[in-house]
């Protein structure tokens, strides 16, 4: 069988499997892993010498930095139709996620949104539309969820006017975009109708601004009349296809049936106990075109099958007069 046929067949199978609810996660993920090990040269090199995994937790996870240093494709390079790039804070090359098809991304983004319990109607965005941000995976995702005339990026006045007369609405944007909007409101307030929601994501990348989540969520209440439970957080990344959602404060992120988080000890690589903290790995069966197992740079607490993000906590890293070069140059 030609590689192209194999990829397309597997993509179709995964698509159907996702639509059917994603049962049998382990078998499906191991299928995807075997395919990627066979067809993704950089990943094959990485797995070289490692035993074939017998459980999904044993699939070798690449660090997210691998998307900066290698072309991680499980399809021939010339079949690339789209590449999304990461935005970062430390300069250097961006991470690049290549696609030969956006089909699984479309399924994961739209089905994941619905499965999380988010309404598919009346969604507006305060991020750029994909047409103006072709390298942003977030913009691509939003473009599937939001009609083109409901993108209000950099149009704060129009967004405010829209919200003042809108019915039940879901606002989707980065935490930074919301923060900018709230500051621009300069004390003005809109009370959105009951049932309205906000979905924030992405943190404050590329800036030196930081705000504790509790303070940001207080602003949602103060400026938009949204209580914390009506504010959702989407955890996703350019290197992944699937998203993880939570709402309110102090609750874990939930995975869709076709993806899992795994919190591991940084020193042993073994899954931590319930309630313990470690490095978050993501296993995403929809990530067919690159690698289905990724070691993120985030720390999380294991909460059953879910995880509670605790960020990267750089403040906890003591630095004396011996300075890591990256910090010196940042």
């Amino acid at each position, binding site marked *: 069988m030609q590689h192209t046929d194999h990829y397309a067949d597997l993509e179709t199978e995964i698509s159907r499997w996702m639509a059917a609810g994603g049962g049998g996660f382990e078998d499906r993920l191991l299928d995807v892993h075997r395919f990627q090990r066979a067809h993704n040269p950089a990943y094959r090199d990485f797995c070289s010498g490692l035993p074939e995994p017998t459980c999904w937790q044993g699939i070798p996870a690449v660090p997210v930095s691998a998307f900066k240093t290698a072309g991680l494709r499980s399809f021939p390079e010339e079949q690339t139709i789209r590449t999304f790039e990461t935005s970062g804070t430390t300069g250097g090359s961006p991470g690049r996620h290549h696609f030969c098809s956006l089909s699984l991304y479309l399924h994961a983004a739209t089905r994941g949104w619905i499965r999380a319990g988010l309404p598919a109607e009346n969604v507006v965005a305060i991020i750029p539309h994909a047409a103006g941000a072709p390298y942003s995976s977030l913009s691509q995702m939003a473009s599937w969820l939001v009609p083109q005339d409901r993108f209000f990026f950099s149009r704060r006045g129009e967004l405010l006017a829209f919200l003042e007369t809108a019915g039940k609405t879901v606002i989707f944007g980065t935490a930074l975009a919301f923060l900018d909007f709230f500051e621009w409101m300069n004390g003005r307030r809109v009370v959105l109708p009951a049932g309205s929601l906000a979905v924030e994501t992405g943190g404050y990348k590329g800036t030196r601004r930081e705000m504790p989540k509790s303070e940001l969520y207080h602003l949602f209440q103060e400026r938009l009349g949204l209580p914390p439970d009506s504010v959702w957080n989407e955890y996703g990344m350019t290197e992944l296809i699937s998203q993880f959602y939570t709402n309110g404060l102090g609750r874990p992120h939930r995975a869709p049936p076709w993806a899992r988080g795994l919190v591991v000890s940084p020193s042993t690589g073994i899954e931590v106990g319930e309630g313990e903290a470690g490095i978050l790995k993501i296993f995403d069966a929809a990530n067919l075109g690159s690698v289905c197992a990724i070691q993120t740079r985030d720390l999380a607490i294991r909460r059953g099958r879910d995880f509670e993000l605790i960020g990267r906590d750089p403040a906890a890293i003591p630095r*004396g007069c011996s300075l890591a070069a990256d910090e010196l140059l940042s």
Partner: protein
Amino acid sequence: MNTADRAESLARAAAHFPELSPPTARDMIESVRLELGHEEILDGFQMYGGHLSMAVAPRTILHILSGNTPHAAFQTMLRGLLLGSHNLVKFPSGGLGKMEGFPGLLPAGLSSRLECSRQLGEDWPRRAEAWVVFGSDVTVAEFRAKCPPQIPFQAHGHRVSVGVVSDDPGLESCALAARDVSLFEQQGCLSPQVIFVGGDAFRYAEALAREMERFAAASPAPPLPLAVEAEIAHARADWDFRASGDRGVRVWKGTGWTVVFEKSEEFPDSPLHRFVFVKPLSENLPSCLARFANHLGGLGVWPGTPANAMRFAGAGFSRICLIGRMQDTPFTWHSDSRQNLASLVRWVDFEP
């Protein structure tokens, strides 16, 4: 208590810290002579050219210490007491372990000249006639902004240190390099982050890894906070991935240590904590280091020949020493390229 008496008492207390290269009384007196011109110049007027001069220590010195290694705390307290000043010492909020017991080792005449706390005393900045600040560039800048302009301000900020092994076919320096890297968990300003090696750098890296393991077996790395462990795990994962696709990269690791061999001329990012890079030594080394020109600390060399030292004397390092001695500073060293006693005193001239 005159300078010689203070030096004697300090030397006795300092001897309780053999791991910090404690100075003898003679070393301390010698530092006074070298920096101030006469052993007794803090005690009275001495001939100085055609007249008499006396060095007057600040009545009170404020020391702000960082939490990376006890070395800085040790030396700055010794210097302040040697000068005869009263010393206000702000320990890091996380403490400084055994070093916090130092005042208790001193005779009453000296221990009464040390006020130590993990909290900055409210009136300490106002009382101090000189400030010595260790910490990040941000910390230093914050204190500098608060320091009155007429007050001497001695800053010890971030530093990057490296080793250069020009010629060591017998790999004699590997065990010594492992010690330099591992002591103080690479947190000191003199801890090497990269060893540049002439000749077979890969073979050197392999041998260094064996010595890192040996050192760790004898002196295991202490437990680390989760965020630090995670940084190390990320760095290992990054380099493992790079090694899988690049024959020019190789990673060796054990419990609490990591050695990465890498050929590029870029200066790599280390998460520290016994995480060291070995790279081939090239003619481009000065340009590789130029990015850190204002932050270079110590350079360990092998062999320790004058020619080797001269080769790098202009690169921006404040200290060049033999590999294996990077953590063992003499009391007379010019920490951060300055005279540390001389920069704190003021002078009184007497022309009879």
